[in-house]
């Protein structure tokens, strides 16, 4: 499912003295099956932008097209659109409410009006995908650990079988291990299900490791877009808007200045480690 955004503007509290331009003339295209990273500062408009993708927020002007269909054109299609575009909010575990893990995950499919068998099938495959074992299905979601809760909540969105999955800071507040687990599962989902994934994140490390394309948003405008290699080579532009490249890229740069012959354009931990090892072997 391709996403096309045309001249999107969003103004909060329009017409009052508190009016605030949150999004300014956003134009972009996201291809089917792409893995896109959205980075930007707090308050840059990331969350506002992703909430437009399934029509939770309506544009002040402009259009969002899903496979060529304007998502705000027909109100009766709203539910179908929200099924196609799954949005996982920040701290999604705060939305858990039902008595058991199984029931909570089945909330979405139930709302979509599916049959019992279909619901069961979807809930089980969603929970399996996020690595929640069957013995936890009948537990209360509130008895689980933080990382498990988060994965149950993500399964709640996955069970809708979205064609586009949007994750707003899915790893925020987790320990390093929980973080890696969740992000690796997201990567795996992207690969096995072939869905379009949009990942909102603060962590340059995670973005560098996972995505194919990056969008950089600043003060409600898309200021840079391109592949990780393209984006992370623009260190100055990133720093100008208060962002940075990855820690690994900084280490590589500092070592280069100290006389290490490391290649340019390496920015993931693995790539930098390999380059340093190669360089050390040569010495």
């Amino acid at each position, binding site marked *: 499912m391709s996403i096309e955004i045309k001249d999107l503007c969003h103004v909060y509290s329009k017409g009052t003295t508190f009016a605030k331009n949150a999004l300014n003339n956003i134009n972009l295209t996201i291809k089917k099956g792409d893995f896109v990273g959205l980075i930007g500062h707090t308050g840059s408009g990331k969350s506002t932008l992703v909430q437009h993708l399934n029509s939770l927020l309506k544009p002040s002007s402009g259009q969002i097209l899903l496979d060529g269909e304007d998502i705000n054109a027909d109100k009766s299609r709203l539910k179908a659109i929200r099924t196609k575009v799954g949005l996982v909010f920040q701290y*999604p575990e705060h939305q858990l409410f*039902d008595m058991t893990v199984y029931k909570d995950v089945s909330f979405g499919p139930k*709302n979509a009006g599916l049959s019992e068998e279909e619901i069961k099938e979807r809930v089980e495959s969603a929970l399996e995908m996020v690595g929640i074992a069957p013995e936890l299905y009948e537990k209360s979601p509130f008895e689980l650990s933080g990382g498990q809760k988060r994965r149950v909540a993500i399964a709640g969105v996955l069970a809708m079988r979205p064609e586009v999955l949007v994750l707003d800071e899915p790893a925020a507040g987790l320990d390093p291990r929980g973080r890696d687990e969740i992000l690796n599962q997201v990567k795996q989902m992207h690969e096995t299900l072939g869905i379009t994934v949009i990942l909102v994140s603060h962590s340059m490390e995670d973005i560098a490791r996972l995505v194919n394309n990056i969008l950089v948003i600043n003060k409600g405008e898309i200021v840079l877009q391109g592949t990780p290699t393209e984006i992370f080579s623009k260190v100055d532009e990133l720093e100008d808007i208060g962002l940075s490249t990855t820690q690994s890229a900084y280490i590589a740069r500092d070592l280069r200045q100290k006389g290490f012959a490391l290649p340019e354009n390496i920015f993931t931990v693995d790539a930098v480690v390999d380059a340093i090892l190669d360089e050390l072997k040569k010495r």
Partner: protein
Amino acid sequence: MLKVTIGQYYPAQSFIHRLDPRMKLLCTMLFIVFLFFVNNFLGYAMAFVLLATVIKVSKVPPKFLLRGLRAIIFIIIFTAILNIFFTAGETIVFEWRWMRISQEGLLNAARMALRLTMLIIGSSILTLTTTPIQLTDAIESALKPLKKIRVPAHEIAMMMTIALRFIPTLIEEMDKIMKAQMARGADFDTGGIIKKARSLVPLLVPLFISAFRRAEDLALAMESRCYRGDIGRTRMKQMRYALRDLAAFIIILSFIAGIFVLNHVAAVYGIW
């Protein structure tokens, strides 16, 4: 999605805004109580002049006051109608079958409507010119004498302050949870009353859980900063009476005196 302004404080720099909240609370209460002693239209005229002056001085746009009135206009009309039909009187103005409208009834209705209107406007001025926090401080100090009979005045005020502080937070939280559930296909708008009530479960359960979580965090944070009620507690913003508070008090006392004088005058000359 949800826009709620909490309290209705209208920020401005004015004599009324600067008054000590305790004095404002006292004056408002005196004004409201003595409004019920007025029994003639001269008195209402005087109360109206006082209110109008206070509004002018407070720099609060009158439309804000009317907005507060709009919410209870129904109650005012209802009371007036009850008074018109159910006041027994001698001078009948209108009679049709069982309906009887007397002059006394009409007068009573007008008095009641005026009283309620001024009562609401009077208390609106208090809330419009005093921040919720100042107001709870004033209430705490008003309740202080009751501490002798073991009314937990400080705790009550603290609970009110915390509740006020967390209303915007909870609204934000609710907005977020609502969106998250809508993203999973939840529907809060359609269906009958039972379906609508059921659709609130996915909203209220997370909201309550988050409120409890916040309460626990806050309690821990307060305890770790050695909060133990009002024993030995000082304030960052001390409330001090100033000369203007005395002026306000004198004005309200003269108003009360004026009411009794006018009541007497009205009785002597037979004014309504």
